């Protein structure tokens, strides 16, 4: 009988706290949204289940405890290993031709990073976060999960869970956040601008692009080398035409394996003690601000560029909204919005892919800048 009572006393049930139960509900919501709404399921399912694991009392499955999740967290995230590997996979899966065919869209990708800096300032001024924490929160506006995890693990590891959840949640909410902003900031006439096809790009230029861009950006901002270097390496093995096996592995099984570990570990950082506090709420709030400002920034900059372009070269300003990265969802949202607004006459999917992939580069460079300025790197 004593043994039985001891077993009950040492079970997770008797050690459950209201915080653990609250986190089970949050994990359930993430898993529900991933399955029923298909909101970023590849990440939200592992994150949701990792959250459950982290909140099982005495299970030692939290990232800040002593179990295997802590091991994966230390080896995979604290060392910056996993996010750059994901970036390599992104490089393999990304076609940069729409960007190369219209280099001016690089600027839209840069302008759409304005949300990062706005949110960082908001986090510092409105909520009193430290400059390092503010930088890590601001990067949510880059709409890039691996970049957010990369920067948060360096500048504010204690906020990693809320930042990652905010980044992925808002990325999945792009179809809801962006259309009202596009409608508000553009006229009917602007939405109806039909852009010609981008100029075709030679294979030599496509192969030289990752080599030159990876080197240039890493020379300018050395802290962005882990992300930009791996992104561009992935793109080189995609485009060079002689590394089919590497391309298949990096863009398939490898990125899947890393996604599983990354998602589970991020979920494991979300134990009740670290997640259920006012900071999480303010991070979620600033994430929304970051996304909205980034969308508006890209869009307004496209309108500014239009002031200097001739009538036949004008840009549909809606494609600026795709500069928030979130590839390829932001491009699809722009395409769907413009097509609907113009009764199917204008379909800017390919033009929107330019700023969209430029946004990936822009957010990686922004993370590198923050890291070198705020992290002493």
């Amino acid at each position, binding site marked *: 009988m004593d043994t039985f009572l001891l077993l009950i006393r040492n079970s997770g049930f008797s050690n459950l706290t209201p915080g653990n139960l609250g986190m089970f509900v949050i994990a359930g919501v993430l898993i529900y949204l991933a399955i029923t709404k298909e909101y970023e399921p590849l990440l939200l399912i592992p994150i949701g289940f990792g959250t459950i694991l982290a909140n099982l009392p005495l299970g030692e499955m939290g990232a800040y405890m002593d179990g295997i999740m802590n091991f994966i967290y230390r080896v995979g995230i604290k060392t910056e290993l996993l996010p750059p590997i994901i970036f390599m996979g992104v490089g393999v899966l990304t076609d940069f031709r729409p960007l190369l065919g219209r*280099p001016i869209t*690089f600027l839209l990708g840069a302008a759409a990073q304005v949300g990062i800096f706005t949110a960082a*300032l908001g986090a510092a001024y409105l909520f009193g976060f430290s400059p390092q924490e503010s930088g890590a929160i601001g990067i949510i506006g880059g709409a890039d999960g691996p970049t957010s995890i990369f920067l948060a693990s360096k500048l504010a590891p204690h906020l990693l869970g809320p930042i990652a959840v905010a980044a992925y949640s808002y990325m999945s909410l792009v179809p809801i956040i962006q259309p009202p902003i596009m409608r508000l900031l553009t006229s009917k006439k602007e939405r109806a601008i039909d852009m010609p096809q981008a*100029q075709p790009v030679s294979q030599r230029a496509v192969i030289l692009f990752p080599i030159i861009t990876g080197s240039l950006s890493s020379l300018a901002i050395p802290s962005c080398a882990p992300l930009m270097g791996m992104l561009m390496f992935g793109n080189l093995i995609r485009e060079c035409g002689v590394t089919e096996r590497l391309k298949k592995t990096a863009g398939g099984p490898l990125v899947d394996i890393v996604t599983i570990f990354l998602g589970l570990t991020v979920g494991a950082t979300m134990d009740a003690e670290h997640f259920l506090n006012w900071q999480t709420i303010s991070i979620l709030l600033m994430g929304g601000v970051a996304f909205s400002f980034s969308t508006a920034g890209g869009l307004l900059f496209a309108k500014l560029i239009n002031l200097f372009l001739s009538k036949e070269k004008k840009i549909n300003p809606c494609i600026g909204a795709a500069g928030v990265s979130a590839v390829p969802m932001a491009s699809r949202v722009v395409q769907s919005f413009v097509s609907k607004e113009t009764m199917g006459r204008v379909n800017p999917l390919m033009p929107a892919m330019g700023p969209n992939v430029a946004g990936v580069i822009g957010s990686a460079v*922004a993370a590198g800048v923050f890291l070198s300025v705020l992290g002493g790197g």
Partner: protein
Amino acid sequence: MEEMNLVLVCLSSFLAVFTVLIIIALVMRGLIAVFPYKDENGDNAMIAAINSAYSVTHPGYRISRIKEINSRGKRG
């Protein structure tokens, strides 16, 4: 004091992102000019159409090579 610094940090970071992307854009523009796109496969539809028309006037023959020459005699 820290918040004031963060304003400067954010402004200079945004400028840095813009500068890096502008440089990359300019380099890419130069790269595309140095290595322009050439349609190495030719226009298959046009070749098929010319072949089809030629086979009517010259049965038993086919065109093996098409070369575009502009009015000044340079290759188009």
